[in-house]
């Protein structure tokens, strides 16, 4: 199953015409959701758990739960992508509760591109400053960063996953970015 690299292309169910959506079977819709969200879910869970092995397990569990519950999804209550990330979030939080382990966001995961030859010294310095600034955020703020920039959720999807209004999600994101930016400026 080949997936497009990088950020997801979006949700087929939410962007296709209504008639086309109704023609799709639940399996086809799930498969499309999986294709568009696999890497995003993994990125979000890995950021939250800060453990690649556990992130793989939780990602697989989240998709399995979504598959089992695909018939219960109510399109009127939101987009499939937000629904999927809600399941992934619950699975990740359950894993955190189970492990009772403190995960620090900026220490892991390591990126293969880290220290690449294409990165200049200034960019590397900037990246290091960002990581240090991320470490100063609260867990909830780091989760917002993970959902927005690692999972690629829209503000509306972010709001639905976190259980707040879209305005509230925008406010949280804006404040987090302001805090992060100030921390980066202080580091640099």
């Amino acid at each position, binding site marked *: 199953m080949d997936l497009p690299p990088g950020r997801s292309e979006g949700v087929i169910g939410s962007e296709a015409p209504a008639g086309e959506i109704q023609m799709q079977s639940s399996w086809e819709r799930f498969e499309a959701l999986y294709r568009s969200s*696999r890497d995003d879910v993994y990125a979000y869970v890995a950021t939250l758990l800060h453990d690649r092995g556990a992130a*793989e397990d939780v990602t*697989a569990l989240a998709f399995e739960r979504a598959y089992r519950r695909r018939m219960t999804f109510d399109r009127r209550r939101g987009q499939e992508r937000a629904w999927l990330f809600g399941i992934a979030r619950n699975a990740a939080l359950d894993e955190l509760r189970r492990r009772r382990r403190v995960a620090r966001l900026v220490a892991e995961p390591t990126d293969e591109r880290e220290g690449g030859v294409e990165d200049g010294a200034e960019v590397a310095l900037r990246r290091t400053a*960002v990581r240090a600034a991320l470490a100063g955020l609260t*867990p909830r703020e780091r989760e917002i960063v993970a959902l927005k920039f690692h999972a690629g959720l829209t503000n509306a999807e972010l709001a639905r996953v976190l259980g707040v209004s879209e305005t509230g999600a*925008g*406010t949280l994101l804006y404040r987090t970015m302001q805090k992060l930016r100030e921390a980066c400026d202080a580091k640099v």
Partner: protein
Amino acid sequence: MRRFDDDPLAPGAASALRALDAALDGEAVDPEFAALAELALILRQERPAPSAAFAATLDARVERRFAAPAGAPQAPDRNRRLRWLAPGAAVLAGVAAAIVIATGGSGPGAVRALAPAASGGVSSTASAAARTAAPSPGALGPVSPTTAKSSASGASSAAAAGTPGPAPAPVPSGASSAAAAGTPGPAPAPVSTGANRQIVQSAQLALMAEPKRIDDVAQQVFEVIGTEKGIVNSSTVTATGDANGYASFQLSVPSANLQATMSALSELPGSRVLSRTDATTDITGEVGGAGIRLAEARALRTALLKQLAAATTSEQITSLQAQLHDADASVASDLATLNGLRNQVAYSRITLTIQAGALAVVVPGSGSSFTLGRAAHDAGRVLVIVAGVALIALAVLIPVGLVTALAASVGLAIRRRRREHALDLI
């Protein structure tokens, strides 16, 4: 209290968020937000990517639709187990309701309709006269008052008398007495006839009939007695058309037909049984004594006749004739006594009273046969029973459901709170 997400976006926040989205989409960004856009891009570059091996493994699982590979045990799904929780709880609640209904059946508030309805159009209220054992044969008085209040209007009486035939007397193996009152329970078994026992049987029956049907029911009594070859010793019928209507009968029937007669009288159309009492008395000793006295009297008479034949003087003859006269009287008296006792054994006495009153359930002329009216009545009762059971079940299920829903809601809230708390552990 205002929630933070009720607050409008801060000035410039909307523009900054739009710049973020534009930077992530690769579009041009206002120079005012260039640093923010650069930060967004760096954050996205920090995005962890799954390994190729994990991606391939998960792809394969999705292709199999998460089915376990052949030979691998299926992992238990907690949610799958929980899925049976609600139906299981419902079944448990249903069983609890059934137990409540079953155990509450004997209480004062029980669903009395669960008891089978009396057959033959006879209301179950007739069972007010419960079965009771008579304390002694002497206590076999009629249940209802025996004094007949005859009124001037419409009163009629009939009496018939006859000589009892030589019907064989039923002789039970047991002795003295047994009495029972009840309606319309199974008739007592006929008194068994032992070899030498002489048993006198009697019965009292109290009926209720509609005031306008006293005459009809009384006439049916005569017909039943005629059919069973019995005798109406006396009768009083007072038909007033109102609640004062009354009838009483003193009846004699061959003891062999007693039970059939009682059954027929208990099922007279237009009436229902108020009470019924059956009694027996063992008079074997009295019959035997009377027989012995009769034999002795006859032996004395025979001896006197022999002496008379041998008498030679007029004085002897006169004396013996006087003794013979007394002996004849004694024989006649003893014979009458013995015949009277045998007659009591051969014929059973029935005391029947009929009083006017409203019948709870009367299906004219129906007896125990099936009719549409009775079917509709039974159907109505079934519906009432079903509604009662459903009401009781709801009374149990609704509180159980509310408690279950409340517990589930609290459980979900606690679970959600714990999940959110897990974020603070990072």
